[in-house]
């Protein structure tokens, strides 16, 4: 995997949203939604992205697809920098990456049939029309485990899990090599969640595509990803191979996160919150290391200097001043 040229390479991605105010709607503040994020996803690899609400996960996802324009940074898809492309130039690249959103219901136009929804990308790109399109859609339906006769049904006639399957079918229709999944299972019932995750795994196995998989549920991320990146307030604070990360969390935030997940075992130790307080506002992120306000190991240096994401061994990168910038091994 490592020797492969990455499919997606994101370098120093920054997305600032202007907070406007004042007489002339001038910018009075900036939401540092994503503040210098770099990562790469190899072909056939799943990169998990976790972090608390509002830390910028969705913004990363949207920027990668150029649904929002990044403020700076480069996004390379298959080696091509797509950040500066015009809408027209972007179109062929759109076929290589697709997105699946959290809320399957809101992701489907309530006034279109499932078949039309899945077929729409084909007609937009002029890949198939009429019968050919019908057949292709039927195929896609079968692939995601829906019956082709359901093509003429409307979204509200499907259950949550089925709707998410429609979304996945739509994403598959263009034959992408990268699928960005923005919390694809958070809105689903517990017993359905596993079905969708299995489907994603199966599809990947068959088609060898890559996922950028976003979730706040660590268990899910842990299950599906090869590598995991942990975000906090617009930055990646730790990124490592999954096994390595869970065995050896180095950033205090990652540790807190892991400790906060309730273990489904009554005999395991009781919940003990590792961190106090709330996530700070991304409009005025704390100086230095953004986590220092909640970190139990905080040092003076953390308050003034922002730690860079550095190699802490074996593809394990962390941004923490502890232990000479390698974080605190558990």
């Amino acid at each position, binding site marked *: 995997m490592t020797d492969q040229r990455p499919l997606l390479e994101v370098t120093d991605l920054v997305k600032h949203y202007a907070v406007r105010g004042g007489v002339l709607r001038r910018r009075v503040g900036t939401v540092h939604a994503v503040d210098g994020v770099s990562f790469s996803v190899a072909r056939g690899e799943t990169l998990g992205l976790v972090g608390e609400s509002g830390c910028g996960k969705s913004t990363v996802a*949207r920027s990668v*697809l150029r*649904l929002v324009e990044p403020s700076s940074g480069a996004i390379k898809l298959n080696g091509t920098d797509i950040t500066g492309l015009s809408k027209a130039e*972007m*179109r062929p690249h*759109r*076929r290589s*990456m*697709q*997105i699946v*959103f*959290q*809320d399957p219901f*809101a*992701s*489907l*136009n*309530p*006034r279109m049939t499932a078949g039309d929804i899945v077929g*729409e*990308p084909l007609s*937009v*790109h002029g890949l198939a029309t009429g019968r050919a399109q019908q057949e292709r859609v039927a195929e896609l339906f079968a692939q995601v485990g829906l019956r082709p006769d359901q093509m003429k049904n409307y979204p509200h006639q499907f259950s949550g899990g089925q709707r998410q399957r429609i*979304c996945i079918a*739509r994403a598959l229709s*263009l034959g992408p090599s990268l699928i960005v999944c923005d919390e694809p299972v958070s809105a689903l019932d517990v017993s359905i969640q596993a079905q969708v995750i299995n489907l994603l795994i199966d599809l990947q196995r068959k088609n060898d595509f890559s996922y950028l998989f976003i979730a706040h549920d660590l268990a899910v991320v842990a299950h599906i990803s090869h590598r995991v990146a942990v975000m906090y307030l617009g930055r990646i604070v730790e990124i490592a191979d999954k096994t390595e990360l869970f065995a050896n969390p180095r950033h205090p935030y990652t540790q807190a996160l892991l400790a906060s997940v309730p273990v489904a075992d009554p005999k395991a130790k009781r919940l003990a919150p590792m961190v106090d307080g709330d996530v700070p506002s991304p409009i005025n992120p704390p100086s230095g290391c953004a986590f220092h306000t909640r970190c139990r190991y905080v040092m003076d240096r953390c308050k003034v200097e922002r730690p860079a994401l550095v190699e802490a061994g074996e593809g394990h990168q962390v941004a923490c001043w502890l232990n000479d910038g390698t974080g605190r091994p558990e």
Partner: protein
Amino acid sequence: MTTINFESELRRAGAHSTHGWRRLVFLAQRYLLGTVGLVIMVLFVWMAISADLIARYDPLSVDSAQRLAAPSAAHWMGTDSFGRDVWSRIIHGARISLAVGIGATALGSTIGVIVGLVSGYLSGWVDLLFQRITDILQALPLLVLALVMTAALGPSLPNVIIAIAIPLIPTVARVIRANTLALRELPFVEAAKSIGMSETRIALRHVLPNTLAPLIVLATAQLGSTILTEASLSFLGLGIPEPYPSWGRMLSESAAEYVRVAPWLVIFPGVAISLAVFGTNLFGDALRDILDPRQSG
């Protein structure tokens, strides 16, 4: 605990009628007032369409021998001071009043939708400009605008329609803009973007259809008020001119001289106006309830 009749409760909730015809029958019973409104509207539309068939006389034909005849078998609603048959005039008046109502609403809504959609979809200076225009139209009171417009354009049927339609634009534009803004943020619009769909196509195919429900509700409410506006314009001498028998003019002109001498000249057009407005509003209310997903249950 009182015993509960499950069957009747369920029937009341419409459980047995979820599809097609039975659902319609259920909705008709559930929203009785709305059904009444719909019936009234359909009746008036039918009257307007088949006016030539159901009118018993030429609505413009003057007959000095039949002046101010009280309602009778020959003249169901009596005759006016020109000896014209009121029933025939009311029926033909339905054409005019509905033409004004539907015409103005359709015109105002169409422009409003375009303005709202463009403004909501293309934020930036276009939005800013369109919003100022709607602001301006909104700050000019409806009747004042209509007055100036009819004075400017002359009181003909198309002109009255235009004059009444213009003030409707800002309201529609605002509603559509707000909806568009909300819809723009929805994942299915983003999904459309992510497959490389053009903005125009997204606007027309994904955004517009989803603004239809609020639009329909708004339009039915406006239908009624346009009919009233026409009546007010008529009262101020700026409505649809003779010879077209608009209800508003029939009422406002007779009201002055014949309310006591020939009350039918006042009652019937008055009832026609009120019924039409009442009907559209009743229907609009029910429609809003039906189209509002949160009202289910």
